[in-house]
């Protein structure tokens, strides 16, 4: 694998990305996002993002998933024909290292394989998004290991397993020291401790199977 080109791009217009629009509406920075497919595949993808804001988001394509303390998790549903910058980069097979939406502006850091791919991507993005600004290009090898991404198929999780996993994560169950124990997380969801443990174990098994490339 080559060293690639670490590319930083910015988009000044919030119209290129729903999350940029949300950042403008709420005045909040959005930099914690995760994208996954939802079955059936032709219905596109969803992007979950965290927002620390008292304001409620009312958009047809965004639904509220869960709240904890001052953090809310929302889900943006992309149509199959979505043409946002991240979708375009995904179509080129480029790993996205960093995503920041703030005050209506969007900054993305991604890795292009080589000059030829970068040239193709820049032309593609510029054709779709006229306000594309390439800010920085870096080829230097870093001390950090190259990003290795795996595909986690979240659709393997049942709704309850996903709720258990999200709630446990947001309440700090996986932190050290834990901010919440199993009893507290179970109470937040409204299930018994043993049921929580069963769902959590099942969810972890499915997620770790993907992370560890175990079919």
């Amino acid at each position, binding site marked *: 694998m080559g060293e690639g*080109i670490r590319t930083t791009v910015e988009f000044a217009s919030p119209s290129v990305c729903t999350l940029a629009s949300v950042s403008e509406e709420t005045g909040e920075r959005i930099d914690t996002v995760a994208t996954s497919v939802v079955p059936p595949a032709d219905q596109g993808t969803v992007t979950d993002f965290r927002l620390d804001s008292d304001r409620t988001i009312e958009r047809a394509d965004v639904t509220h998933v869960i709240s904890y303390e001052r953090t809310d998790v929302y889900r943006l549903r992309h149509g199959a024909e979505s043409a946002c910058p991240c979708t375009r980069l995904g179509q080129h097979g480029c790993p996205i290292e960093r995503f920041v939406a703030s005050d209506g502006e969007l900054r993305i850091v991604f890795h292009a394989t080589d*000059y030829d791919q970068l*040239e193709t991507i820049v032309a593609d993005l510029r054709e779709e998004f006229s306000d594309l600004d390439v800010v920085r*290009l870096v*080829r230097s090898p870093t001390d950090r290991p190259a990003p290795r991404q795996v595909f986690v198929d979240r659709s393997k999780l049942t709704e309850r397993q996903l709720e258990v996993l999200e709630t446990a994560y947001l309440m700090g169950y996986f932190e050290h020291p834990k901010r919440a124990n199993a009893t507290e997380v179970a109470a937040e969801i409204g299930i018994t401790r043993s049921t929580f443990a069963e769902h959590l174990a099942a969810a972890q098994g499915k997620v770790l199977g993907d992370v560890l490339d175990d079919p």
Partner: protein
Amino acid sequence: MTEETFEFECPSCGEAMHVDSPMKRTLVDHGCVFCGAPLTAAAFSTR
């Protein structure tokens, strides 16, 4: 060690950005990533 950074401005299309030394060599070898114009070291300046 901090990698040297250059300000690149294409003399043909005017696009400007920051690049490091290896990327500077890549652009001089291949041309502007936006317009394909051939480039020389004169298109790069240090801050």
